[in-house]
């Protein structure tokens, strides 16, 4: 009953504090709108080159010499000679030597002006590439499959068509960058398909009009068009769609980013509560009235918890209707919100207990000015974590808001509840850990209370 009374009183106190309400509720809504619109064109569009590039590792799973040899053997074999004459076969072999699929992909495509703005690549051994992906050094691994050179030469130089699957492995924590890489590779595949289709049309037309070997005489020009085709590949990042997943717009991102950042201010506000009570002598008055210290602490915990939840509800409602943000399934969103509020409440009372023990507001001040800002930066509240340097990405696990943000974004993209269980567990664990810390800090034997002119230890309530 006393805990409920404390919660009601604290909520009334905060709701009547215009400055606190401005920071807790008005500020995030304003920033949400500004950032959503200001970064609408740059968030995932062509200007992304202004930010850090996406790092990828390219793995060659083929044996280049073997593939070239196999192609030459195939040209010499009777299979192909059934359709074309000796001269045409020789012409194909000569022009085929100029067709280098590896160079096309790596130099003509990945190093093209358009793609190089977005992607930095490095050639790596397969196992090393996977390690880099796990460590967050690269956002995706592109696998050029076995027989890549052979199959591509077949596709580009002969009437036949072999299937070439360029694999893209992405890390679930860097899904945005992963989607960018997948989209770019798809754009490459589409361009190559167009070239191959053009070539096949040429050959089939020659055969239909019984042009014989003359049908292959235009092959050189077709091949020369490949570079142009690759050079003209345009990657529209706004159209990126991963199978079964939805795009994240700037409004989506910053709605979640501001939400997860500003609930930390509820913890900051909570961090001052105990010492404010002590300065007002209301803490001592509650102790004299028989309120246990842990009861007071529990009251503060649930106050911060409810304030954070209130923030979440207001921000989600506002962003849904005003910014057309699609948050995804309600149930996992509620789950994330509750666990994030729980974590915020835990941190809030830990700061409150430490601030109370210190007897001044330095601790709460440091939390509000330095720690929240650092967590916001590391957690991706200012910029998407995927485009930040690797070191920052590694440190992002230390940010409560970063964990919550990743969970919200996953649900927005269409992931299921199972995909965010680890995030929920992490947030709940953080809340429980800090709450326990707060109890340890405040729950020691006796405590300092201000008697008019001296410091004293209060009796255990």
């Amino acid at each position: 009953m006393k805990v409920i009374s404390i919660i009601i009183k604290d909520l009334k106190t905060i709701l009547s504090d215009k400055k606190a309400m401005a920071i807790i509720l008005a500020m995030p809504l304003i920033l949400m709108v500004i950032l959503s619109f200001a970064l609408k064109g740059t968030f995932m569009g062509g200007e992304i080159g202004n930010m850090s590039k996406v790092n990828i590792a390219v793995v060659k799973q083929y044996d280049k010499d073997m593939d070239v040899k196999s192609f030459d053997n195939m040209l010499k074999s009777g299979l192909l000679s059934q359709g074309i004459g000796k001269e045409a076969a020789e012409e194909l072999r000569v022009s085929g030597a100029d067709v280098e699929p590896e160079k096309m992909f790596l130099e003509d495509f990945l190093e093209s002006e358009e793609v190089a703005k977005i992607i930095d690549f490095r050639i790596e051994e397969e196992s090393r590439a996977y390690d880099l992906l796990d460590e967050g050094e690269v956002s995706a691994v592109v696998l050029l499959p076995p027989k890549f050179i052979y199959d591509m030469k077949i596709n580009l130089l002969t009437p036949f068509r072999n299937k070439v699957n360029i694999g893209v492995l992405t890390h679930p924590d860097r899904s945005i960058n992963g989607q960018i890489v997948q989209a770019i590779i798809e754009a490459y595949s589409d361009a190559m398909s167009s070239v191959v289709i053009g070539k096949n049309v040429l050959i089939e037309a020659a055969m239909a009009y019984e042009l014989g070997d003359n049908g292959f005489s235009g092959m050189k020009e077709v091949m020369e068009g490949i570079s142009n085709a690759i050079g003209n590949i345009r990657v529209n990042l706004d159209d990126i769609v991963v199978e079964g997943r939805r795009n994240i717009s700037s409004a989506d991102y910053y709605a979640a980013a501001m939400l997860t950042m500003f609930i930390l201010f509820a913890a900051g506000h909570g961090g001052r509560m105990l010492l404010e009570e002590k300065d007002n002598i209301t803490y001592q008055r509650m102790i004299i009235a028989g309120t246990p210290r842990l009861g007071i602490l529990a009251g503060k915990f649930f106050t911060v918890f409810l304030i954070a939840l209130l923030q979440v509800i207001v921000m989600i409602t506002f962003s849904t209707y005003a910014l057309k943000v699609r948050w995804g399934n309600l149930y996992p969103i509620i789950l994330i919100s509750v666990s994030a509020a729980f974590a915020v409440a835990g941190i809030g009372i830990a700061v409150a207990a430490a601030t109370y023990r210190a007897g001044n507001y330095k601790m709460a001040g440091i939390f509000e000015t330095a720690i929240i800002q650092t967590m916001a930066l590391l957690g991706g509240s200012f910029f998407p974590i995927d485009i930040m340097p690797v070191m920052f990405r590694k440190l992002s696990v230390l940010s409560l808001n970063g964990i919550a943000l990743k969970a919200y974004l996953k649900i927005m993209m269409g992931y299921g509840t199972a995909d965010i269980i680890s995030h929920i567990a992490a947030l709940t664990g953080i809340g429980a850990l800090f709450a326990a810390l707060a109890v340890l800090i405040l729950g020691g034997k006796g405590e300092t209370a201000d008697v008019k002119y001296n410091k004293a230890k209060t009796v255990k309530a």
Partner: protein
Amino acid sequence: MTLLKVEKLYKNFGAVKAVDGISFDVKRGEVFGLLGPNGAGKSTTISVVSTLISPTDGDILYEGKSIIADPKAIRQKLGVVPQDIALYPTLTGYENLTFWGSIYGLKGSGLKKRINEISEVIGLNGRLKDRVDKYSGGMKRRLNIGAALLHMPELLIMDEPTVGIDPQSRNHILDTVLELNRQGMTIIYTSHYMEEVEFLCDRICIMDQGRIIASGSQEELVELIKGETQVNLRLDRMDKNILETLRSIKGVSRAELIQDEIAVSGENIDMALGEIISQVTGHGRRISSIDVKKPNLEAVFLHLTGKALRD
């Protein structure tokens, strides 16, 4: 009948002895005063009695049971009015009373009824819907008292409840204290205002530097300086050298500078009044006022400590 008994109470803060082995008892139904200057140890004593802090040594018995051993047993019976305003300024008076009432376990219609009764007692009926930060100092003080009365405590402890307020509010508070006492409430009242303690208290402890230097009823305390009269002189220009001269006059036992007045006391001081005036004018000073005072607690304190209560 003794309600509260303080036995050899000590409270040290490091090397500082804030309370130095005091003992006293409070009888049921009386107004008991703790009088002393700032820093005498009154608030520390009150903090220990109200179970906020634990003593270094000694015990406090409430109805014969130690509250040091079991502080929870007394808390529901205690009402404490802190020296500072212990309220929430951004909440209304009504919200404040609702909160403090619920902290003491009141709820529903019972709580509402008590708030209405208390608002009458403290004279804030009609202003309870206003935020406390809009109240005057006197109104805050009265609400501060009201918050301690909601659960109808047996023992009300009031720590300097009239500090910094206007005379009208002070009178209202003093009348309230008397009315509560008439209704049967036992009250411990601390103050450094001698007049308030004289007006309210049945028995008084005078504290200085953590010790009780005198205790008893007002009459008993004044008896300590029986026959001693005090004359307060206000001069056109103060001169400390006069003090030694005045002390040498026959019949003068004490001459002290208290703020802008010289307090001269002694048995049959009126017989020495002519000599006093003569010595002052002999020093080239003019007397702007003379005030002959009857023996009071101020004089008792001066007599016992050699300094004024206001020091």
